[in-house]
């Protein structure tokens, strides 16, 4: 399911193997070392044991010499006393033994000092044998008395004691060697035992360490296995509960895996799909042929993205999906399985269709609006031309009537003509204002930074210049800058200030105050006067076209000015409002969105 966990393994495995190999190798080295020490000490022990045995053999040989010598002397004596041939034989045997023993000792003794002693012993033995032979001959030729005489000479005794002395020296030396070798042998034995013990201890320690390693390794493996299992479960869970559909197909396009989400969408069980169904069978016809072609191409290329398909549910209904897929390949580049993500974009498709329909509606409406605008333009053109032309004629002819027929239209007639002409003027003003309103309501808004203090001051000057009543005292505070269409905003100031001047002109001390404040996201401006004011009950009528709260003969005006103000401010995304009280003045305010809002 997850490729990452498999990819991570070989590295970890080789690390473990390396560790195990190092441990095993050092164990072998340690065991070999200890074994070698044991072997060396055993060899030494064998060597020392052999030399001890050798010393023993030498001693035995020396004792053999002693014994054979004694036997020979004893047999000699027997012969001398008895002159029996039996003793002669005994003596010969003893001498033969003596030679054998000497020969043995010669073979055994390697030490130089001992060899020297042995050579001395041989000479002494030869001398003694010569004496023995001489005495036997003396006995046989001259008789026992001559023998006694010869013996009393004392050199046999001396030869015997020399021999004994040499033998004793040999034995003493050999005994010394024996005891020294025995001590060495004991040391070697101790060494060997020590080495053996060391070997055993090392092997036991290594075994204990190995056992511990295996035990901790097993625990570690168990922990890793548990973590891997947890991770796998988590991945499995994520896979199944993802908000998108996941599936994998084999090279023939048959399902090999699918998540719960997609199953839920399709209405199939996992068993019905895996190994049984081709995904292509779930795709509707227009997409099916494209998919058949695209699947082989995809297997080559390794991926496909943002394919839109209609998929059929088990119950026959359809939904629209967005498909993205990556091909999983083995190390030889052979296709193994697809890894595919599906998003249900039915809603998005519906929304897109709705948007398309709405866009079309909007386009039609815009076209209608444009047509209506064009119509309105030609209408206002007609108004400006066709309504004004007759008015001018009425006015002109009324004037001509007054001028040319003064005699006939004297008195009331002249007043009637005045009314006709005034009405014409008013009608003309209404038409002009209406056209102005219409013009300002359309057209583009070209926003830029405006110094409102300058703009308001200029409008105020114009309003004062046009003032026919008493000129008010004018206070213009420093106003916050605005971001708007200056030409249009000039109309706003012009209308508001003209109104303020007009409606306060009948006061004793008329006063107009202009102020402004910057809020978060908007700027706000106020024009306050101490004029006639208005009843708040009629506040909603203030901004309507041709809506007036005062009689025309009281205050001039067509009732378009505030409608223009409202239209301009609203088109800028701002707001207009007014507060007033009859005879206590009015405050007209407007707000505009700040540049950064």
């Amino acid at each position: 399911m997850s490729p990452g966990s498999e990819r991570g393994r070989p590295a970890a495995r080789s690390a473990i193997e390396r560790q195990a190999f190092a441990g095993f190798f050092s164990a072998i080295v340690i065991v070999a070392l200890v074994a070698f020490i044991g072997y060396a000490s055993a060899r030494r022990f064998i060597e020392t044991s052999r030399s001890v045995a050798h010393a023993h053999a030498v001693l035995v040989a020396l004792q053999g010499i002693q014994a054979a010598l004694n036997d020979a002397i004893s047999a000699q004596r027997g012969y001398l006393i008895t002159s029996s041939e039996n003793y002669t034989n005994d003596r010969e045997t003893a001498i033969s033994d003596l030679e054998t023993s000497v020969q043995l000792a010669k073979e055994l003794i390697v030490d130089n000092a001992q060899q020297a002693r042995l050579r001395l012993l041989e000479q002494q033995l030869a001398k003694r044998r010569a004496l023995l032979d001489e005495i036997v001959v003396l006995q046989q030729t001259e008789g026992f008395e001559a023998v006694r005489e010869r013996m009393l000479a004392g050199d046999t005794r001396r030869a015997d004691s020399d021999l004994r002395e040499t033998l004793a020296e040999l034995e003493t030396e050999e005994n010394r060697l024996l005891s020294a070798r025995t001590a060495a042998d004991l040391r070697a034995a101790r060494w060997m035992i020590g080495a053996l013990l060391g070997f055993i201890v090392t092997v036991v320690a290594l075994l204990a360490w190995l056992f511990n390693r295996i035990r901790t390794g097993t625990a570690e493996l168990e922990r890793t296995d548990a973590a891997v299992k947890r991770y796998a479960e988590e991945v499995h869970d994520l896979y199944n509960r993802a908000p998108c559909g996941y599936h994998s197909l084999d090279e023939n396009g048959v399902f090999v895996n699918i998540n719960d989400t997609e199953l839920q969408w399709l209405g199939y069980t996992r068993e019905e799909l895996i190994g049984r169904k081709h995904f292509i069978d779930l795709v509707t016809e227009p997409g099916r042929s494209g998919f058949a072609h695209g699947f082989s191409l995809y297997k080559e290329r390794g991926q496909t993205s943002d394919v839109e398909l209609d998929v059929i549910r088990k119950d026959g209904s359809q939904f629209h999906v967005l498909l993205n897929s990556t091909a999983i390949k083995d190390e030889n580049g052979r296709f193994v399985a697809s890894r595919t993500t599906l998003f249900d974009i039915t809603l998005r498709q519906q929304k897109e269709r709705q948007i398309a329909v709405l866009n079309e509606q909007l386009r039609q409406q815009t076209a209608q609006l444009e047509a209506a605008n064009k119509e309105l333009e030609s209408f206002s053109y007609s108004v400006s031309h066709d309504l004004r032309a007759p008015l001018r004629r009425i006015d002109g002819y009324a004037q001509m009537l007054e001028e040319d027929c003064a005699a006939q239209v004297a008195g009331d007639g002249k007043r009637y003509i005045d009314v006709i002409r005034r009405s014409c003027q008013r009608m003309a003003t209404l038409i002009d204002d209406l056209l102005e309103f219409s013009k300002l309501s359309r057209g583009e808004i070209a926003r830029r930074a405006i110094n409102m203090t300058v703009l308001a001051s200029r409008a105020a000057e114009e309003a004062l210049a046009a003032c026919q009543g008493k000129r008010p005292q004018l206070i213009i505070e420093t106003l916050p800058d605005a971001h708007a269409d200056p030409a249009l905003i000039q109309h706003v100031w012009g209308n508001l200030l003209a109104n303020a001047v007009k409606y306060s002109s009948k006061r004793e001390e008329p006063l107009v105050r202009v102020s402004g404040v910057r809020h978060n996201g908007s700027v706000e401006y106020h024009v306050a006067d101490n004029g006639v004011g208005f009843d708040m009950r009629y506040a909603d009528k203030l901004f309507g076209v041709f809506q007036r709260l005062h009689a025309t003969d009281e205050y001039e005006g067509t009732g378009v000015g505030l409608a223009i103000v409202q239209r301009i401010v609203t088109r800028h995304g701002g707001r207009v409002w007014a507060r007033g009280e009859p005879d206590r003045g009015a405050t007209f305010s407007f707000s505009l969105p700040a540049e950064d809002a």
Partner: protein
Amino acid sequence: MEGFEEAEILLVEDSPEDAEITIRGLKRANLGNKVLWLKDGEAALEYLFADGQYAGRPTPRPRVVLLDLKMPKVDGLEVLKQIKADPRTRTIPVVMLTTSTQEGDMLRSYDLGVNSYLVKPVDFKQFSEEITRIGYYWVVMNKVLG
């Protein structure tokens, strides 16, 4: 038809009432005797180019043409265009008279080379004053080229 050649002011206006009012204004300025009134653009062009009903006559050169903008058949803008496009008539001053306050007409007229543009006020007195002013300026004060 005598006196056409002497006409100093050519008034092209489809409405007889407006023409009467205009001529009355011109009379006040003592310019009334030198006005030729033609009722549409076609007649005006034929007159200016000595064509059609005016064929064979010497080419007249009025001091000023007062041209109504909105007329049937050939409208004021078309007449203006032809006057200003032809070298023979190009230097004749043309004053456009209109009832319309629409800016578009004014801009197009200036594009075509109009010399002056008058939005006829509804007020007769004002209108008379304007006409008088224009009459004086173009007929009396202005030295016509050529």
